[in-house]
């Protein structure tokens, strides 16, 4: 469903920032991308979302060449949640979610009755009905992240891309977000970048390690737990407890 061949991207000419020779994702599930700061996680996710142009190589999403996917089509393929959203002006939560289906709006910005019903259903499912009438400025970081998640699920992209969805989020909301992601994994490809190894290893089907823009290892958690030293250049300790794995710095 996602197929990448000989992908090369650089911010400054002549210096490859990201170079991935071969990566393919064949089934739905949760995929985590781990790596140090500046290893290319965000760049990689932005490339997949068609937010960066001028890459070499080939990216195929759902059997289509990314370069040939039209603007309105991308909304049905990718749902993207950026690392940080900095709102300059306040905005109503309900409309924020509603704009997820921009590509289906008519000239006046109206959606069909069914679409509106979907929003209410989602708000209920994500337990954020009480936020419906509020504005984004009044939300906490965790609440905003849930609203973002609602927006991107409402958009309906088959591939859900989340750039560091757990950073600066409190425990309760983190747990909620994880629950929702786990429910989605049967029907979507969920791509997450995160520094939280614990979450990555415990919820992902596959983990991808990035280092200096190159892929260093891909596989399930049993395989990847032994590759950590290569990815992070430092000893990372962990304890295994049945199916779960806990990481700690060991200092």
């Amino acid at each position, binding site marked *: 469903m996602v197929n990448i061949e000989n992908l090369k991207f650089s911010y400054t000419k002549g210096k490859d920032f990201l170079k991935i020779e071969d990566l393919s994702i064949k089934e739905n599930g949760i995929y985590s991308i781990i790596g140090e700061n500046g290893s290319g996680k965000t760049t990689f996710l932005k490339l997949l979302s068609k937010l960066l142009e001028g890459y070499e190589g080939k990216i195929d999403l759902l059997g289509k060449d990314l370069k040939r996917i039209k603007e309105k089509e991308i909304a049905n393929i990718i749902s993207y949640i950026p690392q940080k959203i900095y709102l300059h002006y306040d905005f*109503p939560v309900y409309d*924020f979610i509603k704009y997820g289906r921009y590509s289906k709006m008519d000239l006046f910005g109206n959606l069909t009755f069914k679409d509106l019903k979907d929003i209410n259903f989602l708000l209920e499912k994500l337990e954020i009905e009480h936020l419906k009438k509020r504005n984004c400025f009044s939300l906490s970081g965790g609440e905003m992240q849930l609203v973002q998640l609602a927006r991107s699920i409402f958009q309906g992209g088959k591939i859900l891309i989340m750039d560091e969805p757990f950073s600066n989020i409190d425990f309760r909301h983190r747990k909620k977000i994880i629950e929702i992601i786990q429910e989605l994994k049967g029907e979507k490809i969920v791509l997450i970048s995160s520094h939280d190894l614990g979450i990555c290893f415990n919820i992902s089907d596959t983990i991808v390690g990035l280092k200096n823009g190159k892929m260093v290892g891909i596989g399930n958690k049993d395989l990847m737990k032994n590759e950590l030293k290569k990815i992070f250049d430092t000893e990372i300790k962990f304890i295994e407890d049945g199916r779960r794995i806990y990481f700690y710095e060991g200092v």
Partner: protein
Amino acid sequence: MKGKKLLIFLTIFFLLSFFYIDFKLSNFEKDVRNEIIKMRIFRYILVITSGMVLTSSGAVMQILFKNPLLDSYVLGISGGGLFGFILSSVYFKGNLLISIFFSFFFSLLSALISLSFSSNIKSDRKVSILISGLLVNILFSSLVIILSIFSKRDITFLFYALMGSFNHIFISKNFFLYISFFVTIILTTVFIIFKSKELDIISIDEDIASTSGVNVKKNFFFILLIIIYQTSLIVSFVGMVGFVGIIIPNILRMAGVVKSKDLISGSFLGGASLILVADFISKYSFSFEIPIGVVLSLFSLPFIFWIVKNNFE
């Protein structure tokens, strides 16, 4: 805007309009009265369209650039427009189409200069665009002064052109002109209102907009082009009028109006109302008429200081 808020705004606007046209009418003889009403209605139409356009274009610019302190004046667009207009009136003896074309061309040029300046200033984007807009404005105002002196224009003309006035209509008074002006403004405005959903989603986040199916770059420049065109038209008629475009959208935002469509339609009513009041003051406060830009800037400065204080840390 819906319901109560809209009703309040509409009532204020109509009361102001009535007062503007009716002021001291009973002092005149009956046959003179009709003439005065006619003149006042012409001026009234020009005043409210300018108010509407300058304010809504300010609101749109603030959304596009994510900066609450922008309007066509601050960005240097009206400076460029005025220069183009006066240039054509010097070299082409005020041919209407050429004037409007020149005004548009130089508005566009000034916007481009301002944008490329700001991308070269390594600072917060909010601040850099203000600085570059200011520089462009100074540049074109100076050019306007030089040009006027070279063409041996009356100095009061210069004064009114630089500060804006509805008394010295720069283009000849022609009924057809007013109608076509009005129609163009309405068409472009309808277009902007239809673009309000794109504006909304761009104001949220450009990356989110892109992945939701909005062509951010195309929409950005297309909307900006329309705004520049509108502004250049207004500048050709009334000179440089600043600050309405900053004040009204910010007041609306404070009042909880946040969606682009509401902000733009609120700006029509609010901008028209404010500029009516300002024009009224400029007409009647002294025995001679003071430029409307002077009235507006005097009233706006404390308010703008307050916005800066709240938005720039």
